[in-house]
């Protein structure tokens, strides 16, 4: 426990705020518009539309509106956000500044290479760093998110098999892989074949050998997997898949556990995506933008999206002359501003700093696991990587669910962990503290969860009624889906 016994989640000054269109007055404006300067031009009246029905607001109206809304939100800057599989680490402020560097933020993506040497150099260097960090040979920075990287990876699988003259129709996906994997594979027409993990939460090479055939494009696995465990027999599994002419996709969403430890190429992985908004500290922005660069072996480099950024002497240029490429998957160069932030992070941390980050992320997760496993059921009791997965088994006697515990954590001032994922654990509670939480804060979080477990026995209604200290209480999600109200004005 830290110096105070107070949890962060005390009630605060929460102001009300209407919807935008219930504010303002016709004729107000919140933005400066340049003077006309030129004469009004003729326009075909048949093409002119009705003015858009937007509210007219002053600058102060707008500032108050969004400031109040922001105060109903909780971010990493507000407090601990142990959302498993999402790596909610601290997002450094300097990265925001670097992405906003005027000439970089103003760079137009369609100008000649000689006018864009600075941005091209940044892309090229980031590609080089990510290749070194993963152990793979070539990188495309185009994918705009993790799932977009997965799709790119599946397009590469598809193009590679086509190039070899035989298309395949199935793909192996373990039950401990990331949730987006089956939908990404489906876009390439691959039918997902589930692979069950064993009682230790591991993939069994014998089972992979049984399922892998020459109709199967390969395997999509997550390592460390979604139970937070390292797939110890990944090399054997990769060898089995390769022997049958398949490829190995590694979902690198959990890379924060193994920086400086795992070499993806040595593991036998052919294609790996990284989530820069997880491992490389770029902010999640309430749902994006992220970035999902794809790293591949030299053999697969010709299949990467175009354009590629290449270096010739000390000049950089875009190269689109790649006949085997899967083509373009983003209008321009991906979420460039996100790439600038990740580049800044890598330069700030350096090699030793990045390796240290993974060590401390894993230490934090194991520490939380050890200090909670006497009160919460731990389905896989063994050393974990950067996250640990509990369940609500011990609370079932009180008819308290994972959801109730998660909601009660909000009253204590914490963002809940990921719940009900991975699916392989019933009532999962997946905690990923990340390396940027200090021991004091972990101790306080542990104390909060222990207090909640006690409350579950003594005052279970406190959990069922939670949260009580937020802008709104539990929301009726069934009603939201049954009678969707997706645009205003408000129905309430």
């Amino acid at each position, binding site marked *: 426990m830290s110096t105070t016994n107070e949890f962060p989640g005390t009630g605060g000054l929460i102001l009300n705020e209407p919807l935008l269109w219930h504010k303002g007055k016709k004729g107000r404006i919140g933005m400066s518009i340049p003077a006309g300067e030129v004469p009004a031009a003729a326009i075909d009246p048949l093409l002119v539309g009705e003015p858009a029905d937007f509210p007219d607001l002053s600058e102060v109206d707008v500032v108050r509106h969004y400031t109040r809304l922001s105060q109903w939100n909780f971010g990493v800057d507000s407090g601990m956000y142990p959302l498993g599989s999402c790596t909610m680490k601290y997002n450094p402020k300097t990265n925001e500044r670097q992405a906003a560097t005027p000439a970089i933020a103003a760079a137009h993506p369609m100008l000649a290479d000689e006018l864009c040497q600075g941005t091209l150099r940044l892309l090229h260097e980031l590609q080089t760093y990510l290749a070194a960090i993963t152990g793979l040979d070539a990188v495309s920075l185009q994918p705009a998110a993790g799932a977009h990287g997965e799709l790119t990876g599946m397009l590469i699988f598809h193009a590679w098999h086509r190039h070899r003259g035989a298309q395949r129709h199935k793909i192996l996906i373990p039950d401990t892989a990331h949730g987006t994997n089956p939908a990404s594979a489906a876009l390439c027409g691959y039918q997902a074949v589930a692979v069950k993990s064993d009682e230790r939460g591991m993939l069994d090479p014998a089972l992979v050998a049984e399922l892998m055939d020459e109709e199967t494009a390969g395997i999509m696995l997550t390592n460390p997997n979604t139970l937070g465990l390292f797939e110890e027999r990944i090399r054997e599994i990769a060898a089995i898949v390769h022997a049958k002419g398949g490829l190995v996709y590694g979902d690198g969403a959990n890379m924060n556990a193994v920086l400086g430890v795992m070499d993806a190429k040595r593991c036998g992985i052919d294609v790996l995506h990284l989530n820069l908004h997880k491992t490389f500290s770029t902010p999640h922005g309430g749902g*994006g933008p992220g970035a999902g660069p794809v790293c591949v072996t030299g053999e697969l480099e010709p299949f990467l999206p175009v354009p590629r950024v290449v270096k010739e002497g000390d000049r950089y240029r875009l190269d689109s002359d790649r006949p085997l490429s899967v083509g373009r998957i983003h209008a321009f160069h991906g979420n460039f501003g996100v790439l600038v932030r990740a580049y800044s992070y890598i330069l700030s941390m350096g090699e030793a700093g990045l390796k240290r980050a993974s060590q401390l992320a894993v230490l934090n997760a194991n520490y939380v696991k050890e200090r909670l496993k006497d009160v919460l059921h731990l389905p896989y009791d063994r050393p974990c990587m950067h996250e640990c997965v509990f369940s609500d088994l011990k609370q079932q006697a009180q008819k308290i669910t994972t959801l109730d515990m998660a909601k009660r954590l909000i009253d204590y001032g914490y963002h809940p962990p990921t719940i009900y994922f991975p699916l392989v654990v019933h009532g999962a509670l997946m905690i990923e503290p990340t390396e940027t939480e200090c021991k004091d804060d972990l101790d306080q979080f542990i104390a909060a969860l222990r207090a909640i477990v006690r409350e579950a026995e003594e005052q279970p209604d406190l959990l069922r009624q939670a949260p009580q200290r937020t802008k709104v209480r539990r929301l009726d999600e069934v009603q939201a889906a049954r009678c969707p109200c997706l645009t205003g004005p408000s129905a309430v």
Partner: protein
Amino acid sequence: MRYLPHTSEEIDAMLATVGAAGLDELFASVPSDCRVARPWDLPAPRSEWELNDHLRALAASMGVDEQTAVLVGAGSYHHHIPETVRALAGRSEFLTSYTPYQPEMAQGTLQAIFEYQTLTARLLGVDVVNASMYDGASALAEALLMALRVAKKKRRVAVAKAIHPHYRAVVRAYLQPAGFEIVELDTLTSGRTDLGGLAAHGDLAAVALQSPNFFGVIEDLDSAAAVVHRTDALLVAAFTEPLAYGLFKSPGACGADIVCGEGQSFGLPRSFGGPYLGMFGCKAPFTRNLPGRLVGETKDAEGRRGYVLTLATREQHIRREKATSNICSNQGLCALTAAIYMASLGGTGLRQLARLNYDRAEYLKGLLVRAGAKIVFDGPTFNEFVVEFAADFRPARERLLARNIVTGLELGDLYPELAGRYLFCVTETIDKKTMDTIAAEVAA
């Protein structure tokens, strides 16, 4: 390292709790033949101040900077961004939060996205808008996949050649593996798309047009909707410049079924092409076929208004391989930014700004014609137009670049038949003096 809070005493205490002798022992489960075997050779870590210097040096190596007048659009537009947009979207409660899976802790994001969906639906003339796609190009690809889902058995779509060539490339990458067929539609001398032979292309699930199209030309969407619907296909209307709908009739009002495109113009910097904003909406009957996240209104346990992510049964984490898309992370903060921008402009400001853009572009058109140039397509345009010069434009273009003005995008790489022609873009950021300078140089 300032982001890592652990002291060595704390590490020792935590290792003792865990029962490990050292940090390396935590990785005992990683086999030695899976491990990093060589140094990465990354640059030495930089202090905050060294990092500032480094990025400043990179910026200085750019041939153009924020002071340059760039008369190139082509899917990335320079519009003024109010400081309020940057300040509010940069609030860390928005910036450092995750996808709003715990709605009680994310009402700010959720209400803001609900408002974004509402304003964008009004702008595009559709009934429902999702919480964003990656960019305009992937939004178009997803729109065509959605139309193919709606049409069930059909395997073919038609796409106008006057759609941004990069968008068409993304469409090809997305549709090719599943074996869907793409027919490309020619451009008429007006710059509009030729819809004359649609019926000859057989069973089309959708016809995609961009308006204003890549050449800046406003397509006749009213007529297009009638023609496309007669073939029993859906009309997908794409865009790269949503500001146009501040002045011109919205695609939804013209009868488009799915409307999608790029929202970068609304408060996002050009930033070398991203992060941008895929705007995506449709008519109500297709709601359950939409890709991506949706925010819906509901009530809390005490009857108060509140917002949640909804209709998740369409999405990858529930439907797995049967989902309407694999998208998970989207461009949430970019959608929030666009909402703040739309709120700042308001209905009155939007019309005024769109009109200003139109007038300025028409002004430069007039100047160039008087200087001897020809406007290649004679259809009505917004902000962008294609110019053919009487003489080789390259020397004048070089002279203008020396005066920090980038004039137009040469089209030969993208459309060989338009080699030597230039796509110009004028927004409110290009003042009269700059346009007069360009005209004088062309005349010289």
